[in-house]
């Protein structure tokens, strides 16, 4: 299976409110809130930890969930967040601090 790396998009605004992330897209100022699972994914998305490691070490230890099922859900979630410009996904490690190119209103 291909390893996926995920990184927070530095162009978004983000803050934790009562354990859940508020995120404002840098692309169009759309506001999102992340549930607890998505918040863990976001907070762990450092560009150097793979998605399966995040699932294994952070999500499966926090929630009672089968690793295979959790991995599928996490990948879907990561791709959805990437679609909104909130996360970056790559098959190679992502250096932090790099904004997603071409983002504009």
């Amino acid at each position, binding site marked *: 299976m291909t390893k996926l790396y995920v990184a927070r998009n*530095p162009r978004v605004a983000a*803050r934790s*409110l009562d354990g859940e992330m508020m995120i404002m897209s840098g692309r169009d*100022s759309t*506001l999102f809130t992340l549930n607890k699972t998505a918040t863990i994914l976001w907070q762990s998305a450092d560009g150097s930890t793979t998605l399966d490691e995040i699932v294994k070490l952070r999500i499966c230890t926090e929630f009672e969930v089968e690793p295979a099922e959790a991995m599928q859900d996490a990948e879907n979630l990561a791709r959805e967040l990437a679609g909104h410009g909130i996360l970056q996904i790559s098959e190679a490690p992502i250096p932090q601090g790099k904004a997603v190119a071409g983002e*504009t209103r």
Partner: protein
Amino acid sequence: MSGLLEELTAKALKKNVPLCVQMDLTYRCNERCVHCYLDHDDHGEMTTAEIKRVIDEMADAGVFVLTFSGGEILLRKDFFEILEYARLERQFCVKLKTNAIMIREHEAARLREIGVESIQISIYSHRPEVHDAITLVPGSLKRSIDAARFLKSQGLRVIFANVLMIQNLQDYKGVRALAEELGIECTLDPTVTPMMDGNRSVLNLGVDHKSLREVFRDENLVGNVDEFCAIADPADEDSLAALPCSASHTACYISPYGDVFPCVQFPLPTGNVRTQKFLDIWRHSDRMNEVRSIRLKDLTTCTSCSHVGSCTRCPGLAFMEGNMRGPSSQDCDKSFARTGVPSANMLAKSRAAANLVQIRILPPSVTAPVAGALA
């Protein structure tokens, strides 16, 4: 307010989180607007390091929306360093308020690169002779409009903020047309704020009831005029339990000298971030907590007013009039202009005035000695 934002605000309120802060980086300015409430001298602004520390403390306290304003923010040589720190190091949603006359292509591109939610530019008229006579800077309208174009060309969200006064009363339609042509949002505010030292002479620049009444009946501005100008239903128990506004509940203001107030328009000092932790002031200041404790039902005069359910009453303006639980006359004026019904405060004032000017004709036996004494 969007549903999600409303939900987050409710959660922040419940958890006592200061979701939004306005931080004025300087009171210095390169314009001299005739209605401005600020003292533009520098009395010891916070340093870059101090501001970054406060930004850290605000991030840790849960502040999400940070508005940088002034004075003119770009007069600070470290402005971009501060902005970059707030945005990229501490992930704030940043809004800017500026006259924009120092924003050219380069600055617009930098703002785009760093990423800001919006840039609000003060525009008083679409006509240079009117706008520049308010800012007292020749050529300022052209520079501000050029800046708005540069910012738009970078894909940034720009908002024109138009303060309505006697001088520019006829021009708000022109400003809105200009905004529309440029693809820019536009706000209109008839509130002139008293000077920070309490001087209220600038209020004479505000528009009168009759003019405001006409503005409030412009359907291009307010939409459904009947709906906008309708008198609200009598307030029930629930609406009287409501909060007067977000000041000290989910929002506050920090001056360039580190003073913390409930709002930019509420000059009640609650602490100073140079000597205290931001969160300690937010949570434990007696004054902040006093403001926080006020509900609509606690207001003197306003509770019995027919406008209480729909009034835009600003607690800060009320405070500047002498009582944070009292009415704000400027908002009474707005309610009256909107509905034609005088507020409870206006009625009380007119009764008091009637008592003051009442002339009683005294019988000649009483007046004669007085006249004689003066002779």
